[in-house]
């Protein structure tokens, strides 16, 4: 894979300009290296979704030719798309990484968590995640969250301090100035780190295209048996659908985000290549989550509440 440094030919700029993707890439790499230099046991949250794939790609570049000095952690809801789990396992093997899996199903089987009536398991990820962080003593946890995703995230820091219960207190967040990230924390506390804070959905896709990064197939248009619920196309599956009044049909769809099957909706699309996907997103008039994630629609303050509890 070769990367050429993009020169931007813009009459307003001196010869030493960087393209926006190069600027964002350099910033993210700087964040990864800061954490490697200042923390004992960092971990990357890796779901096999596009944001975590881009995070891993950046981490690989940040430390090459040495291996990435972090392990990976996946919180498996038990309702993940098989194509995504397959991608996850292949990627881990390809780069010789270590993966920890925290399983929501194990918690349900042990009676520590209860299935919700709507079958959605995304909110159930918080407990397995926070317990994994505690038990494995991670002090820095990389997440793929972006500030453009949702209003409560617009104020998130790059380094976000969490107490021993993983709680996020908006009033305890430290001012973040220049490129000086303060990751000091007490034992038992940890820092969530968001290297893609300043990226938008389009930046992520453009970067995937520029770097030639492979993605799970479900991001591209394919025929799938789906049914409609709450205005979204959901995948038929054992997680709880379709119900009697819901009619499954086969449609040409793709996914814009990848999460729990029960709350990740597909969009009608015939985009089978990255360029076609990017073209579709660039003209899309719906934000990523608004179109496809039921869990953020629960209430206007849903995300804020769940962040406080330790969700990303």
């Amino acid at each position, binding site marked *: 894979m070769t990367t050429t440094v993009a020169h931007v030919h813009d009459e307003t700029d001196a010869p030493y300009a960087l393209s926006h993707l190069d600027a964002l890439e350099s910033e993210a790499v700087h964040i990864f290296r800061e954490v490697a230099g200042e923390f004992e046991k960092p971990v990357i949250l890796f779901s096999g979704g596009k944001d975590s794939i881009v995070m891993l790609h950046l981490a690989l570049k940040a430390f090459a030719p040495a291996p990435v000095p972090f392990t990976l952690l996946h919180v498996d809801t038990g309702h993940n798309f098989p194509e995504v789990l397959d991608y996850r396992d292949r990627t881990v093997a390809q780069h010789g990484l270590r993966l920890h899996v925290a399983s929501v199903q194990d918690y349900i089987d042990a009676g520590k968590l209860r299935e919700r009536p709507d079958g959605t398991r995304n909110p159930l990820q918080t407990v397995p995640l926070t317990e994994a962080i505690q038990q494995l003593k991670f002090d820095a946890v990389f997440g793929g969250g972006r500030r453009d995703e949702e*209003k409560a995230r617009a104020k998130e820091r790059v380094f976000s301090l969490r107490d021993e219960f993983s709680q996020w207190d908006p009033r305890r967040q430290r001012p973040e100035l220049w490129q000086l990230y303060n990751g000091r924390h007490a034992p038992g506390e940890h820092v969530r780190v968001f290297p893609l804070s300043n990226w938008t959905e389009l930046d992520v896709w453009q970067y995937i295209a520029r770097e030639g990064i492979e993605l799970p197939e479900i991001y591209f248009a394919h025929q799938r048996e789906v049914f409609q619920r709450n205005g979204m196309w959901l995948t038929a599956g054992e997680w709880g659908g379709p119900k009697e009044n819901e009619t499954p049909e086969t449609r040409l769809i793709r996914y814009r985000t990848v999460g729990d099957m029960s709350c990740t909706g597909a969009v009608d699309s015939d985009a089978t290549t990255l360029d076609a996907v990017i073209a579709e997103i660039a003209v899309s008039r719906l934000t990523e989550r608004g179109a496809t994630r039921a869990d953020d629609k629960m209430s206007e303050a849903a995300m804020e509440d769940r962040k406080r509890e330790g969700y990303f």
Partner: protein
Amino acid sequence: MTSTTEQVAGLDDLAATTLLRFATAGSVDDGKSTLVGRLLHDSKSVLTDQMEAVEAVSAQRGQDAPDLALLTDGLRAEREQGITIDVAYRYFATARRRFILADTPGHVQYTRNMVTGASTADLAVVLVDARNGVIEQTRRHAAVAALLRVPHVVLAVNKMDLVGYQESVFAAIAEEFTAYASDLGVPEITAIPISALAGDNVVEPSANMDWYGGPTVLEHLENVPVSHDLTACPARFPVQYVIRPQSAEHPDYRGYAGQIASGVLRVGEAVTVLPSGRTSVIEGIDALGESVDIAWAPQSVTLRLKDDIDISRGDLIAPSANAPATTQDVEATVCHVADQPLAVGARVLIKHTTRTVKAIVKEIPSRLTLDDLSQHPSPGQLVANDIGRVVVRTAEPLALDAYADSRRTGSFLLIDPADGTTLAAGMAGESFASKAETTAQADEEGWDF
């Protein structure tokens, strides 16, 4: 698979563009949220579902038009109080450029937030109400932009619709502000008459002000230069991390990873490592996957040197011809950002680039009131949102530049060693490009507001 996106027909947005980081300063009363909402809305960056939510809430409250300010008010506490309590980052793009906006509240109790937003900004938009003109708050915003050495300042004279779109009103405010900000050393000021509510001169040129021949706010944001002549600044490379694979494939690779803080580095250049003072020559530059002969700020790269010398995180690599001095006595202007005060004698940590060392606050010679730039001698301590001068003694030498010369290697944080709180944001050297400060006659109350 093709790895270029520029072949997508009709999608100019996808070409490589530059990135501008800018900050807005102003208060709810000035119409800041409306301006930001208008920029997002009129640049087609607000998507259908976001707009639907805004329309629904506006209708619920009985407002007859969608309240664009709602696009940017995030946390529940703010929605309840109708205020903005933290820096919010917003993202939008045009065919010409990508923008990162640090949206900061303008009231005096939020000075630290404006300082935070301005710290990474290439440009600051200062908003004034055309009916009120330049007020204390405006002068404070200009002072923060000058203090943080923001290269470009835009004065947005808002609510022109409420003064009959009169050129004379705009001209008087622009003249007063420009004189004030120039005195503080702001290098470039552009004044634009706008109405955020009606949309005049934000994105679309105003039909109501044909006397104004300049750019709209968005046009100016698209055209202002973002990269400065980096060759004018000496190169600075704080080492973040040492890469040593020690693998069969790379048995002897030793690379120093970091982000170039300023200037340009070239293969073959003689360099000095600080604080040790050892010298070597750049043998190779690895730019995230390819070897290059030249790299510049703010690229993240890995440097390989000719000699095997002891270098670790916290060291600074600089050209031997133009290396900074090291010092253990730091004189600086700080903005106090914590709720607990900073007093003379405090034992702190100082975080400068990739180096964190112990330090003691030796003196707090003065506190500065930003509204009128008066200095209050020997305040004894600084509290949240204070700006003051400090003298700090560090346990180990720092390779510190003046903040005026390099925002990245002239800035630092003071941190409470007990709980890790960020106490203050510091800028080494003189406060302003010109000596505009005056000494206050008497510090009667210790309050600025």
